[in-house]
């Protein structure tokens, strides 16, 4: 290539380094849409973290009780709802008794919605509210409620469920008197990365009941030290963990689609990084992008 060719190539690279941000937004929109509509058919292979969480739940026997504490709001729904759905599917297949409570004010509503969707193919759960599952909802000072639940679960939630119905009328709450290994076999905490507060509260308040943490991808490294110490039995890391869970269940769903789509988005961001850096390299005196 002659000097004119190099100059032209450098000019093109410089142009790539100065793309209008509206163009970048448009390209991101197209890429995200394509990722959602046509996710690449990549295989999802379960990793050890997710496998450990799956095996713990597989060891449940019919009628074993599981406590689920939800600490995420509408902002993390896209990542954590599919995970919650996958976990609920497995618990329903194991015929477990499910008790849900919430640490976030929106959690009760989210749990109810996800549970009803997940229970679509499980009439025993769809029609078994108060027998197979219950939603205790949110209570002000939720950390205090959790501590109180280790002594007296119904009293900790003022004796009412998410909808304000008295717990005394449900056969399930007569069985589950306290959040202890005597009444429960397993617990889940679905935690949004706000300083992993829910997980920390659980670790410090509840003893002897193994906990699995479902967290957004960003939070996964934060949780890892607690897995190493044994305070957390296993983790389900982010949307990828949820996709792996769906693969283990043999029921690919929203998490698998989102995870596959994320590969497309990663390639797109990689392309943008390459363009931006190539543009900067072709224009070394330019300090700001």
């Amino acid at each position, binding site marked *: 290539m002659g000097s004119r060719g190099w100059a032209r190539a450098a000019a093109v690279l410089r142009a790539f380094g100065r*793309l209008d*941000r509206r163009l*970048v*937004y448009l390209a*991101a*929109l197209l890429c*995200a849409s394509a990722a959602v509509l046509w996710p*690449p058919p*990549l*295989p*999802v*292979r379960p*990793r050890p973290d997710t496998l450990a969480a799956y095996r713990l739940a597989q060891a449940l026997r019919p009628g074993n009780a599981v406590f689920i504490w939800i600490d995420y709001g*509408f*902002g*993390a*729904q*896209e990542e954590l709802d599919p995970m919650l759905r996958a976990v609920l599917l497995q618990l329903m297949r194991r015929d477990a008794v499910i008790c849900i409570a919430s640490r976030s004010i*929106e959690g*009760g*509503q989210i749990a109810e*919605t996800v549970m009803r969707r997940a229970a679509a193919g499980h009439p025993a759960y769809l029609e078994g509210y108060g027998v197979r599952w219950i939603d205790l*909802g949110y*209570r*002000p*000072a939720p950390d*205090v409620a959790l*501590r*109180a639940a*280790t*002594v*007296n679960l119904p009293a900790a939630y003022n004796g009412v469920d*998410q*909808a*304000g119905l008295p717990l005394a009328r449900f056969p399930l709450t007569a069985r589950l008197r306290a959040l202890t290994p005597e009444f429960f076999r397993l617990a889940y905490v679905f935690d949004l990365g706000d300083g992993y507060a829910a997980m920390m509260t659980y670790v410090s308040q509840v003893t002897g009941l193994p906990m699995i943490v479902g967290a957004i*991808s960003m939070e*996964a*490294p*934060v949780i*890892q*030290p607690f897995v*190493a110490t044994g305070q957390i039995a296993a983790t389900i890391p982010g949307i*990828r963990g949820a*996709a792996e869970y769906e693969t283990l269940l043999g029921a690919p769903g929203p998490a698998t689609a989102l*995870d*596959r789509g*994320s*590969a497309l988005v*990663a*390639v*797109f*961001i*990689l392309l*943008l*990084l390459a*363009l*931006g*850096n190539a543009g*900067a390299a072709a224009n070394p005196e330019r300090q700001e*992008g």
Partner: protein
Amino acid sequence: MQKAAVGLGTAAAIFVLATHLLGLGGSGLAAQGDRAVIATYAGAALLGLCNLGGIHLRRVAQRRRGWAYSLLLLGGLAGYGAVVLAQNPQGPGAEWVFLHVLSPLYATMYGLVAFFITSAAYRAFRARTPEALILLLTAVVVMVGETPLGDQWRVLGGFAGWLLHIPATGAYRAIQIGATLGALATGLRVVLGMERAHLG
């Protein structure tokens, strides 16, 4: 007044510590303490509501910049309050607001973040120094390795996993230990009345 607040805080802290250390978690005394905490939460929420309402009422009354947004906030507060009082916090009205107003608003806000991150990655993530190059390469490896592409290219996926499980976890552990020690020291200072900045 400040001395009374410090004294009350110290007494509450000693009470909570004592119930934990003496194993009185299941006692009636601890239950009373729990009720006091819940009442404090409720009181703080009410105080916050009054403060927020007062600030925005003044802004509307004085027609300060952005007063229309304040009006919107006050309308939202009054409207949602009316819905909850007319039914209850779990009623169909409140549920409708949660599912059809709050949920899409949150989704929109978080959805927008993806665009800003993408644009920022393009404009600002430049390998100008060797350190920036290492950061960039690490970000690329973790980003790609944490997608199903990491399963296709095992070395990349394995390296991303190693980065997350070993160096990142080690760094987080150090941060956690440091932050916890800091929180412990601050807590002790508050309990002993040496730290009074929070009292104004």
